[in-house]
């Protein structure tokens, strides 16, 4: 790797604006994610967190600004080619394929990038090591899994494309605290063992900020606060808005 590769962030979002028709959801967002980092993005409902994640993935397209992945401009690159660059996402609400088996769901993730048989096997190993419950249910239809298992499947499916950047949208949504903790533990394991870079969008600010190296707070399509996870957890405005009043982890 060249000297610049080590210093440039893996993902850099600079002044990105995005809109649905006339409604502007992102009003000039800047974030950076360095290699090997877990970055949390928190914010109220409708702040534009999911939109930012999807804009990085190319849909909706950024109307202004620049998105760089590994030093290359990917602002105008179509979604399916962004997946080839090995950015993977687990979308909001899990969205696994209900009539397909667990094995097929995982295979769908592997299909996103060209991978050899050996790489596919290794990917499966990794997913099953992380979520043994999926291994017991390989033949079960996705739609019949419990909510927590579906979330594991959604993350596993994203992992099957051997991503360099994994983006997770509200992985703890609707999960019991114990299962949510398992999911967070899995993300931490991935980061520590494989050095996987993760962007995690969460309502569960307490958990997410404890897990993350750094965090961003988004309000109405703008980043209003940034800092390390521990720093943000201490900020009074965060405590007021996302911890004390809101849902606790």
């Amino acid at each position, binding site marked *: 790797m060249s000297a610049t590769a080590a210093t440039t962030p893996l993902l850099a979002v600079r002044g990105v604006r995005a809109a649905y028709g006339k409604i502007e959801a992102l009003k000039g967002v800047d974030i950076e994610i360095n290699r090997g980092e877990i970055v949390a993005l928190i914010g109220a409902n409708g702040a534009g967190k999911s939109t930012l994640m999807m804009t990085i993935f190319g849909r909706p397209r950024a109307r202004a600004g620049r998105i760089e992945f590994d030093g290359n401009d990917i602002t105008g690159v179509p979604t399916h080619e962004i997946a080839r660059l090995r950015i993977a996402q687990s*979308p909001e609400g899990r969205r696994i*394929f209900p*009539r397909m088996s667990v094995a097929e769901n995982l295979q769908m993730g592997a*299909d996103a990038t060209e991978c050899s048989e050996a790489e596919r096997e290794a990917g499966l190993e990794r997913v099953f090591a992380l979520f043994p419950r999926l291994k017991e249910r390989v*033949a079960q239809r996705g*739609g019949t899994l419990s909510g927590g298992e579906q979330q594991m499947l959604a993350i596993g499916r994203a992992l099957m494309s051997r991503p360099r950047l994994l983006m997770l949208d509200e992985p703890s949504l609707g999960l019991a605290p114990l299962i949510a903790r398992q999911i967070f533990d899995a993300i931490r394991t991935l980061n520590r063992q494989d050095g996987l870079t993760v962007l995690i969008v969460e309502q569960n600010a307490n958990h997410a900020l404890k897990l993350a190296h750094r965090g961003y707070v988004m309000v109405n399509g703008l980043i209003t606060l940034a800092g390390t996870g521990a720093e943000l957890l201490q900020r009074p405005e965060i405590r007021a808005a996302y911890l004390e009043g809101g849902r606790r982890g």
Partner: protein
Amino acid sequence: MSAISARPSHAAQPSGSAFILKKALISAAVALVLFSLMIGVRTEAGPQGGLIYWTRFGDLAALVGTVFGGSIIIELLRQWWGPVDKEHIVPKPVQAAMSFAGRWLAPALLVFAFLVPVIFYNQRYILDLSILVLTYVMLGWGLNVVVGLAGLLDLGYVAFYAVGAYSYALLATNFGLSFWVCLPLAGILAAFWGVLLGFPVLRLRGDYLAIVTLAFGEIIRLVIINWQSLTGGPNGVSGIPRPTLFGIPLDNSDDGLAARLGIDFSPTHRIVFLFYLILAMALLTNWVTIRLRRLPIGRAWEALREDEVACRALGINVTTTKLTAFATGAMFGGFAGAFFATRQGFISPESFTFQESALVLAIVVLGGMGSQLGVALAALTMIGGFELFRGFDQYRMLVFGIAMVLLMIWRPRGLIGHRAPTVFLERNQAISSDLVKEGHG
């Protein structure tokens, strides 16, 4: 998801006799309102041009009574059978027998299909009917790619059938090209039209897609009717050459097949040849579809049917996925069309009405949206059933309709509603997936 949420709602469904009566009464009231004008009062232009009318209250009463009774019967049947994923009401031994039959049904049907010309060699009618059934099996398998696998509701499938038929007819009559040259051309042309239809409907789903495809089917038919100079308009194209066995004609000429083999000529030779031809084409369709389902593109089709947003999130190119589904389905339709043209020797726009699209779609839905065996069984029942009731022309549609309603109550997901998985991680998984399907599915 749906299987889980369906259960409590079913349990909560009222089932007492009061409920059944109430439902039947409502149906009867609706029928009364509907039919009082359609049946109860009959109007006609009189001899002086004035309007004369008479009443038929007897018929009306009979119909309303039928609706009332029918509604009760249907509700009782529904409660007796329960909704579809009620494998548990079927006793275990029957279940085992069914799964045994399921395993051997397809091979048995295949062997039988190969033997049909041998068994029924002297029964021209059965042979003709078998060819017709196989044509619909092929059309059903073709449409199955679009509707069953990719989940794109296509009501204009007949357009590609027509494109294939006219491609062969016109190429053969105008340029003297042989069937074997035209067959791939017909497929390519139909696939081209499939892509052409695909582009404008890329963003449409469900009802909207259905309406546009329906219009597309009609447009193609109208173009054929009105482009007289090319297509012969309503008069159609006649004198379409019969297929040859790689250049050897199947007639009683001197260099015909019979003469070359030194056997007596019989018109049945051609029928048998046509039978094996369509059988081979249908099996090719089936084989290609089964292969495609195991490739990333086939999986992408099925994923698209499940959840388009998730497909995008996985970086699947939704545009090419949809277009390839349309093109593949259309290509098979085009092949079938070319076969139809060479079998009939004459084609006209009348063969390509919306009714055909509806029939093929009914076959796919009845067969179970995505199941190859289901589609074949559905084609056999529908086309065969149609023929069975040919004698009772008046009641044919009625019986057909009732059978369809009953079947949809009994098996709302079609004859074969279970979807065979395409990815296996371990060798013993095939067995465990059966268990899952029956136990928890």
